[in-house]
């Protein structure tokens, strides 16, 4: 971060002020250079967020109204559900994450963004790939593996797209100004590097080498857990580690804890997927190792929790004022909750109940939405004004977005987790016939649809506010749009 300049010795007093000013101009120049590509990523991401809202709502209705839109093959539940998850993950979350990654990288490497064409073409290809993949799923060309449904032609396009962005990322990192490499940057370099390995080997093993039988399930579980836990986890945590200190104006409480958190994260998270295979037709040691790794993540969660709590101490009122902090804080809490639920769910006594129920859908939404998407919303609320050069038009629209997203996703996750436990428990009791287990889930599924409607309202507010922003209908730059006025300088 850029605090080093202000710690010069006293005789340079006059120079320090101007250095700080230079620093500010420097940051403005970096922001200006990143403006086009980052806003492009955000715009496409938000477009897909709206598409996923529609798909998700349809899929949710179908779980309690199975005849709803039942006449069309391309809207059958088995197609609309993966179309929903994949638009959310590949259409919204990945580009939103990449946009944030790009901005954080140029800021933390303190270099202007060069070769924007790589990124622009990368995002164009990425969106062509996602479109091809979603259309492929809807017309019945799915590969048949969760989160890896995209047909091979779409995967190839996505891979080319990602390579362009990764080349750019490596170039920026190599040209960084010398000095301390901040912890966020560790996570970002990790994310940039892990994704191609993850996506490349998973698709290679499934579609080119055609691994046999249960190996496909092992690869799919490994991939799914890593895409959400490791890749999204890394970008989300990078964002949290950047914005909480930035907006509260307090440095990370313990840098030592932050590095412990990073290394235990990198060491244990890649193993988590196989815990889901407990009881399944795989050698027992595979899920057992997954469960062991899952328990070890207590260390990661504990260090991160303590660090965030200590950094936030005395600044909790910022949650009341700053949109960025409010969303980011929600995301940070969701990351911790999601980790704890992941650990509890991996115990075999709990897993036998929650396996094959909506509980896993609850975990998915906790990771992809409550943690990652909320963190990205927070990042966008901070970054977009600096790129466009004006402030958010309406604090009430941000407030509406927050409450709708927070309550919508909170309600959805609670319903999914509880219905998972309830249905799982009665599934485990053979006195309960299977049809009554299904009946029992129906009220929860209806509640889920209500949660979707609430989320849709939030997304509508967010989109309108964002559109007004990029069309420069915002307030003049200078005074950040806050929920409530703050004393001193606002961020």
């Amino acid at each position, binding site marked *: 971060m850029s605090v080093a300049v202000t710690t010069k010795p006293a005789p340079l007093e006059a120079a320090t002020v101007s250095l700080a000013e230079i620093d500010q101009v420097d940051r403005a120049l970096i922001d200006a250079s990143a403006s086009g590509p980052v806003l492009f990523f955000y715009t496409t991401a938000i477009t897909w967020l709206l598409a996923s809202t529609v798909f998700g709502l349809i899929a949710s209705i179908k*779980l*309690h109204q*199975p005849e709803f839109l039942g*006449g069309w*093959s391309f809207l*059958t*539940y*088995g*197609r609309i*559900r*993966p179309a929903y998850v994949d638009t959310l993950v590949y259409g919204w979350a990945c580009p939103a994450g990449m946009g944030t990654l790009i901005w954080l990288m140029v800021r933390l490497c303190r270099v202007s963004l060069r070769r924007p064409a790589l990124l622009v073409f990368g995002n164009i290809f990425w969106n062509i790939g996602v479109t091809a993949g979603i259309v492929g799923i809807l017309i*019945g060309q*799915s*590969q*048949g*593996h969760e989160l890896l449904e995209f047909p091979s032609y779409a995967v190839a396009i996505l891979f080319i797209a990602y390579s362009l962005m990764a080349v750019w990322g490596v170039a920026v990192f190599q040209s960084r100004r010398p000095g301390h*490499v901040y912890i966020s940057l*560790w996570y970002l*370099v990790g994310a940039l*590097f*892990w994704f191609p*390995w993850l996506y490349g080997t998973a698709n290679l*093993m499934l579609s080119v080498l055609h*691994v*046999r*039988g*249960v*190996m496909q*399930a*092992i*690869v799919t579980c*490994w991939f799914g857990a890593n895409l959400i836990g*490791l890749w999204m986890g890394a970008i989300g945590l990078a964002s949290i580690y950047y914005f909480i200190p930035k907006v509260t104006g307090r440095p990370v409480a313990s840098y030592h804890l932050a*590095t412990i958190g990073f*290394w235990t994260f*990198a*060491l244990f*998270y*890649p*193993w988590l997927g196989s815990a889901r295979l*407990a*009881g*399944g*037709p*795989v*050698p027992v040691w*595979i899920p057992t*190792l*997954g469960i062991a790794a899952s328990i070890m993540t207590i260390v990661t969660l504990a260090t991160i929790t303590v660090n965030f709590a200590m950094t936030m101490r005395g600044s909790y009122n910022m949650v009341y004022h700053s949109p960025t902090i409010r969303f980011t804080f929600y995301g940070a809490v969701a990351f911790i909750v999601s980790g704890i639920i992941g650990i509890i769910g991996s115990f075999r006594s709990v897993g*036998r109940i929650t*396996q*094959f129920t909506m509980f*896993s859908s609850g975990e998915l939404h906790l990771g992809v939405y409550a943690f990652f998407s909320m963190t990205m919303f927070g990042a966008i609320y901070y970054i977009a004004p600096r790129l466009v050069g004006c402030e958010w038009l309406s604090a009430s629209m941000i407030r509406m977005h927050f409450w709708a997203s927070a309550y919508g996703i909170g309600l959805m996750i609670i319903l999914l987790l509880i219905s998972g436990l309830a249905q799982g428990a009665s*599934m*485990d009791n*053979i006195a309960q016939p299977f*049809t009554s287990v*299904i*009946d029992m889930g*129906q009220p929860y599924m209806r509640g889920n649809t209500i949660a979707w409607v609430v989320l849709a309202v939030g997304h509508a507010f967010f989109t309108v506010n964002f559109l007004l922003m990029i069309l420069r209908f915002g307030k003049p730059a200078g005074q950040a749009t806050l929920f409530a006025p703050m004393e001193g300088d606002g961020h």
Partner: protein
Amino acid sequence: MKTFPAVFAGIFATFAIGWAGAVMIPQFQVGSLEPQVDEDLGDVYPVNIGGIADQGRQVYKSEGCFYCHSQQVRGQYDGTDIERGWGARRTVARDYIYDTTTFLGSMRNGPDLANIGERSKVADWHYRHLYDPRSVTPGSIMPPFRFLFIKRKIQGQRSVDAVNLQGPDAPEPGYEIVPNADAKALVGYLLSLDRSHALKEAPLPPEAKKAK
């Protein structure tokens, strides 16, 4: 860490260890299992049946059946799958070696299908169920797959393929509803799903042996 190359080496190594342990070692262990051959009886299991079952597996994949139906029977210590009658024994890795796409599944909005071909052997039941799930299983939340069927005028005699639909689903007189090629392949695949053959690593429980 003073130098970033050391950090990068760590980023590489931690992920590589996870990949090797969670993906590559399992691949060496279960990636190239062979079928079990009983030399005395000349009995081989599993058998690669191919043909219509392979085509049906494609339909199962396109329609995303596996988002609601698992194909795995957990052992007695891991769940009540066997008590629910979804299989006589737990399924093991060897059961799946010929599945070009393996659908272990992660959700049960509907029952497990690992042995559906052994549990429901009547093709017409499957057709009626696909056409209108609630006509045979009240309370089911399965979507209808009417788009896999063709309604046509009866030419001369009623086709042998015609589905025996009752009540409101029955076509008007002079018409019949027949499954299309995809529906036939899908039902062919479902009828082929039978993982109840005894394996050395997963023997049948004594009571199931007696029943056979």
